[in-house]
């Protein structure tokens, strides 16, 4: 397989509402910043991959309208949409397209403008003969799985609150992040409004408007476009059965993420994840999920996630800083969120993370999470 690398990134300032920009203009801002970052003219892009969950904007085939914003006119352009994993899966599609030799430079752009529609309704078109009869939403489904996870693994509300605090404090150092709360405390999270027992307002991700782009290049181009490219060491996807009730103890088991990680670690020669990774950007729509992912990703043994966060080992100064960007808990334009994970992991490898840079990153992890338990795992490295 031809080696491929992420050579540039660009993103918008994410916010509750970006009424100042139309969808194509929002996409253009992220795409334009990524091209400037690589010093590329639009003509140098061979193909474009777009990620977006179109029902949130009431669209069909959104690439038709926003494609021009992604410099896709007159170029091959495909759209990927797999719920929360849309962005990471679009990046993986870009990796494969470059690795194939068909294209040398591919631009991947993810975007969402939740403010233009109604996110709950956009997610409500579930199986009309089954789960459409119950109003649980992503929030309710998480809360259900969390009750099982807490009972089985001894995780507490305070453990989750620590994750929420870490995310928003980290986000304060990220100029693109939506929720930036440098002074947030565990007490504040635990006192925030209850949404679905035990999940509180500050445990949940926001709904954001935003876009994020990466430039993917083949081995013969990467070095010329970036001083320190973020090489793709592994990119693995695993999908799961369709109904929440199909998945046994979802957060606790998370067999898709476990299997995707196992395969990715094999490809990238990761033996001791907590030590081998220098940074991780993982897709955590709710504070509790980050704890579950620690276990599924092998950062700790099952049942040890609470102690991992308690000991501060995933804080910026810890052994493995998780989500220096602030993560999905601080910024969630769904179609962009997976691209943001890969872009942020790439920035860390490039050493261009600004105030949120972790020193000396050689190997970085990015994950995507979507629908009930779909998983993407991407490993990036400096060599």
């Amino acid at each position: 397989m031809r080696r491929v690398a992420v050579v540039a990134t660009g993103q918008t300032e994410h916010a509750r509402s970006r009424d100042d920009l139309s969808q194509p203009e929002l996409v253009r801002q992220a795409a334009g910043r990524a091209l400037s970052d690589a010093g590329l003219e639009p003509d140098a892009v061979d193909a474009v991959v777009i990620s977006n969950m179109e029902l949130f904007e009431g669209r069909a085939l959104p690439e038709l309208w926003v494609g021009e914003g992604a410099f896709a006119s007159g170029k091959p352009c495909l759209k990927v949409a797999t719920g929360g994993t849309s962005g990471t899966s679009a990046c993986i599609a870009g990796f494969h397209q470059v690795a194939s030799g068909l294209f040398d430079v591919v631009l991947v752009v993810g975007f969402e403008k939740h403010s233009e529609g109604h996110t709950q309704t956009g997610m409500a078109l579930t199986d009309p003969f089954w789960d459409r009869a119950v109003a649980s939403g992503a929030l309710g489904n998480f809360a259900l799985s969390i009750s099982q996870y807490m009972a089985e693994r001894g995780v507490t509300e305070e453990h989750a609150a620590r994750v929420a605090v870490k995310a928003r404090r980290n986000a304060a150092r990220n100029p693109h992040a939506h929720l930036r709360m440098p002074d947030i405390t565990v007490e504040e999270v635990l006192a925030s409004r209850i949404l679905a027992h035990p999940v509180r307002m500050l445990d949940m991700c926001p709904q954001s408007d935003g876009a994020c782009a990466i430039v993917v290049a083949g081995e013969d181009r990467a070095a010329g476009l970036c001083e320190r490219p973020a090489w793709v060491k592994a990119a693995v996807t695993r999908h799961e059965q369709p109904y929440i009730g199909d998945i046994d103890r979802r957060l606790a088991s998370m067999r898709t993420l476990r299997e995707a990680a196992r395969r990715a670690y094999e490809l990238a020669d990761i033996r001791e994840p907590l030590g081998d990774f220098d940074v991780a950007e993982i897709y955590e729509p709710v504070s509790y999920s980050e704890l579950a992912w620690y276990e599924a990703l092998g950062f700790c043994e099952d049942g040890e996630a609470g102690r991992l966060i308690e000991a501060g080992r995933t804080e910026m100064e810890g052994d493995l800083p998780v989500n220096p960007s602030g993560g999905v808990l601080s910024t969630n334009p769904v179609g962009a969120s997976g691209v943001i994970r890969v872009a942020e992991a790439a920035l860390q490898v490039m050493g261009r993370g600004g105030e949120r840079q972790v020193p000396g990153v050689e190997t970085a992890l990015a994950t995507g999470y979507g629908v009930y338990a779909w998983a993407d795992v991407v490993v990036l490295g400096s060599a």
Partner: protein
Amino acid sequence: MSEHLTVPIEMALTWRYASGSAMERFAAGLRERRIAALRCDGCGRRYLPPRPLCGNCRLPLAEWVPVADEGALEAWTVMHLPILDGRTGEPREAPYGMGLIRLDGADTTVNHYLDERDPERLAIGMRVRAVWRGDLRGAMDDILHFEVLR
């Protein structure tokens, strides 16, 4: 540009969904307060909702097995943020209890409403039973909610 204009457009779309033959048979059972699952020949897993294929074994499903209208609570929550009902578009009045219920005779769980909404009175492993509506229509909301058996 100081002024940011927005263009309002109302979406009102409908679709005609086909249930598939397994779901059709399942729905006919609901009209008689009967619940049935499809059992996989390969792994023995008894599936709700019924479907054409076991995704794990990738084998067609054909063997129907009876399922009780009561079972064990495997997971629960109390919703405080009202979620829109996908059928009516209206928010359901909060707070309300929800659970994942493993019905006796099935291996997958059903997500549904609970009559209990006090977190202090809910626990994994509790026994629950379906409360059916009077006028059965052959849909999952023929079950109004599950009552906690104490």
